[in-house]
């Protein structure tokens, strides 16, 4: 093909340019799907301990994204000593396998949140989200006082179905439910049932009482439920320190 025929044909030039620049991405990304150790297997007593979010946590994650938390907070602890001492065990690829999109990042204005779950009390999160400087004087985080409003969860089933389409194992049929029971255990599988999404959401908000108000389901309930889960799915005391290094 002649130089001139490419340069004088904009459509062809665009297509060939796309092919050339996609080569870099293709050779870097595609092989990862075929390498066995890319996503670590994290099993305790035969069950996967990393599971998809419950309907309430999923709505919390949506709010996390709506409010743009990711612009300042990453969820990726790199395997460096300084990060491990401050945030905890380095993040595993498996820990974000159900995240669409993932929340990794290389820019932190606030601290990394990959292991913030259970680090603070629910009450602290509520107060801190409403008025960060009332607990951390030097904080530059904005106030999020509107999170105490009622949570919209009418379309939570559709949200779960959308994630199911991209491979997150939420269940709709009995057969799918049984597969989840086998894979994650019954307690988790119940929360992944799309048909019981609203019911589960209300129940989790009531028992967890994340926002300090047992009667209403607020956006705060969802967001705090999500934050309290972050980084808690893997019990690292069940694995040798070197176990996850073997995957690299």
């Amino acid at each position, binding site marked *: 093909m002649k*130089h*001139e025929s490419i*340069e*004088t044909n904009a459509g062809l030039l665009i297509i060939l340019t796309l092919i050339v620049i996609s080569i870099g991405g293709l050779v870097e990304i595609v*092989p*990862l799907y*075929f*390498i*066995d*150790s890319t996503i670590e297997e994290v099993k305790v007593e035969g069950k996967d301990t990393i599971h998809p979010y419950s309907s309430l946590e999923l709505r919390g994650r949506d709010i996390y994204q709506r409010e743009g938390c990711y612009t300042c907070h990453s969820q990726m602890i790199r*395997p*460096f*000593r300084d990060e*491990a*001492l*401050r945030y*905890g065990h*380095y993040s595993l690829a498996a820990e974000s396998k159900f995240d669409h999109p993932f929340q990794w990042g290389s820019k932190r204005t606030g601290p990394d949140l990959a292991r913030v779950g*259970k*680090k*603070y*009390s*629910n*009450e*602290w999160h509520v*107060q*801190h989200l409403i008025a960060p400087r*009332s*607990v*951390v*004087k030097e904080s530059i985080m904005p106030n999020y006082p509107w999170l105490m409003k009622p949570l919209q969860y009418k379309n939570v089933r559709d949200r779960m179905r959308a994630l199911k389409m991209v491979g997150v194992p939420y269940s709709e049929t009995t057969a799918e439910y049984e597969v989840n029971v086998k894979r994650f255990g019954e307690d988790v599988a119940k929360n992944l049932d799309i048909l019981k999404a609203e019911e589960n959401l209300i129940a989790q908000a009531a028992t967890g009482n994340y926002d300090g108000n047992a009667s209403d389901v607020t956006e705060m309930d969802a967001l705090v439920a999500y934050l309290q889960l972050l980084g808690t799915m893997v*019990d690292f*005391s069940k694995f*040798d*320190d*070197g176990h*996850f*290094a*073997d*995957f*690299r």
Partner: protein
Amino acid sequence: MSSEKNKPTVQTTGHAWDGDLQEFNNPLPSWWLWTFYATVIFAIIYWVLYPAWPVGDSFTKGMMNDITYTTADGKTKTTHWNTRSLFLKEMQVAREDQAKYLKDINALTFEQIRSSEEKSAFANSMAKVLFADNCAACHQAGGNGVVGRYPNLLDDAWLWGGSFNKIQETITNGRTGSMPGFKASLSAKQISDVAEYVLSLSGNEANAAAVKNGKAVFSGQGGCAACHGADATGQDFMGSANLTDKVWTIADVAGADTAAAKKDAIMNVVKNGKTREMPAWKNRLSTTEIKILTYYVHELGGGK
């Protein structure tokens, strides 16, 4: 436009737009070209040295030196170069550097640490960093807490006990303190009377008649004495507050200006109750780190 101006002085690609717009065919600057070649060579060396190329369901492991690391539980392993093993090696080196100090801290009792100037200085300086990362978000950088929410660690009032052992237990396993609300089980008058009684316990002005009624509710129908104790001094196995001292951890009586505001603060807690949670740190911090923090918190001023 004269045709002379259009005469090319350097080689062109032969394209011409709008009659005279031409594209010169200049060679790339040589510094750019050689830098480009250098990056290609760099990439090839990199592929050889580091884990890089996918091969089937695995990948090339590279020719960098193997890494031999020992984990905290004493297992030694040698692997090909990778960042996770590098990290474990980094942790091992630091652990061994600190070992001689931490060994002493682990072996000594709290009293022994206190009696050694060097050891207590070490514990305090390490604890300061741990405290800032883990505790300060609630208890504040200086340990003074937030009235109504997070207990002050500087005073000598302790909800769950202020001995070394008790503090260590609190940090390790966390605590959940819960006071129920009484707005359903007590009448407005009873709640008001109890509040007057509680005010009187710590020497605040209160209505004598109401105090008498309040005391009866406190030890009788209200059931307050079951948790706070008959003498209202609290019980540290369940974290119930001592109501007879002047330290307020939930109702901000000391911070209220008027007598009415003081009473309101108490009534609010009696009506609605309060649940507070201190998270457990055993999965986040090592036993040594918890021991050091225990020592630090105890020595902040209020340890018993």
